[in-house]
């Protein structure tokens, strides 16, 4: 556990010093900030527009940062042979996987937190109140991002960063249309139903983490659903990182 935390700390330092990351964060803050200008064009719907824009901005830029940091996580370690320096020390391959995951998650979490603080400040300055449901939405977004990061790390062991990015975007898309796929499968029946249901259970259901619409329209969020979604994310992360660990164990450096 000690070495996992040391690798995580090192990964975090390395990640937050990347100049490209700063560029993305600045862009994200401008996007979230622009909600003030756009909301001024609406008719008495300022807060609604800020919440809509703000939460969408945090989500989109959170995803961009996740893909940017996660796609090359293990691939770069192997290609640049920094793994040689780690594995010749009392470090296991599992330490590398978990250390990278936690370090990158801390980096992504920090940037999402920064965006969330900017959003809350804009909301308060614009006359809104402290948006607790939005904080919950960001929390669930973190669970989704953590799940995607674990999947990205798994992909980055056996494929290039570009391919890992493409696969993850596909999973992101499928993961958000899974409820529709389930509905279609039930209606379809026969073999199609079983094939689609297999896909439904294999791919992560990312809609479980999307409560942004409920937040924006002030619809109450059942706490049980939130807890189930967090558990679902944890289970999927464990599975993806376990597979990643097995794949890395088989790999010759």
């Amino acid at each position: 556990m000690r070495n996992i935390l040391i690798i995580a700390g090192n990964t975090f330092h390395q990640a937050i010093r990347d100049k490209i990351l700063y560029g993305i964060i600045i862009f994200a803050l401008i996007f979230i900030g622009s909600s003030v200008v756009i909301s001024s064009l609406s008719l008495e719907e300022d807060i609604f527009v800020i919440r809509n824009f703000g939460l969408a901005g945090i989500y989109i830029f959170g995803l961009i940062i996740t893909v940017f940091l996660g796609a090359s996580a293990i691939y770069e370690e192997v290609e640049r042979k920094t793994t040689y320096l780690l594995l010749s020390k009392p470090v296991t391959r599992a330490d590398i996987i978990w250390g990278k995951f936690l370090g990158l998650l801390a980096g992504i979490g920090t940037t999402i937190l920064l965006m969330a603080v900017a959003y809350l400040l804009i909301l308060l300055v614009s006359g809104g109140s402290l948006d607790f449901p939005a904080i919950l939405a960001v929390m669930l977004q973190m669970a989704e991002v953590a799940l995607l990061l674990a999947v990205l790390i798994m992909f980055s062991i056996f494929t290039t960063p570009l391919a890992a990015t493409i696969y993850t975007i596909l999973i992101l898309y499928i993961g958000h249309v899974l409820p529709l796929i389930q509905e279609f499968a039930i209606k379809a029946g026969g073999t199609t139903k079983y094939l689609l249901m297999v896909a439904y259970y294999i791919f992560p259901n990312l809609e479980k983490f999307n409560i942004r619409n409920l937040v924006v329209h002030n619809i109450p969020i059942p706490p049980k659903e939130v807890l189930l979604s967090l558990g679902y994310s944890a289970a999927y992360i464990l599975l993806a990182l376990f597979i990643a660990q097995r794949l890395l164990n088989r790999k010759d450096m």
Partner: protein
Amino acid sequence: MIKIDGLTKYYGEQKAVDNLSLSIPEGTIFGFLGPNGAGKTTTIKMIVGINTPDSGSININGRTPFMPSAREEIGFMPEEPHFYDQLTGLEFMRFAANLFSQKSQAKESLEEILKKTGIYEARNKKIKNYSKGMKQRLGFAQALVNDPKYIFLDEPLEGLDPIGRRELKIMLENIKKEGKTIFFNSHILSDVENICDQIGIIHLGKLIYFGSVDNFRKDKSLEEQFVETIKKL
């Protein structure tokens, strides 16, 4: 003692290391020589526990390097080492030292190791701004953070200027005097000639010579004898 017995490694169909056996006594400098692609790096990566062999065994002080705890006594410098570019030299040294248990960490401070390896002045610079020679020195420095009993170096003299090569050779001799065992790969034969107690020569994965430098070269230079031997095969 480092004891290697029947070590074999395949990459696909190709045998990269073929039934290699070696026995290296404590407190000696061993030079592992061979042309490019002979299997030197593959061998050293297995010895330090990075990759596993398809068959054979490795024992370092009676323990297999595939147990992480056994690597507490090992220091390794890879060929053309790569680091985390956003860190400074000193930050990387701290990171490397923290990966060892408290009792394995070097008695001398990290700054002392950086001074000894000639990279102290650049300790607060980001590694991405280091030259090849500076990275080579940092690679050597990080291999010493745990005060290892066994030091493995893959082409340590590569990328160093003549002054750097001389300094490193002096450092290796001093480390040997402390009773440590040094195993290094090299193809700079003139350097190996001066400092090694024993050499091993590998060609196409097979060990073709193991013993003292003098026994191998006879009345020729090591380079001459090496080229002649390899050409005959």
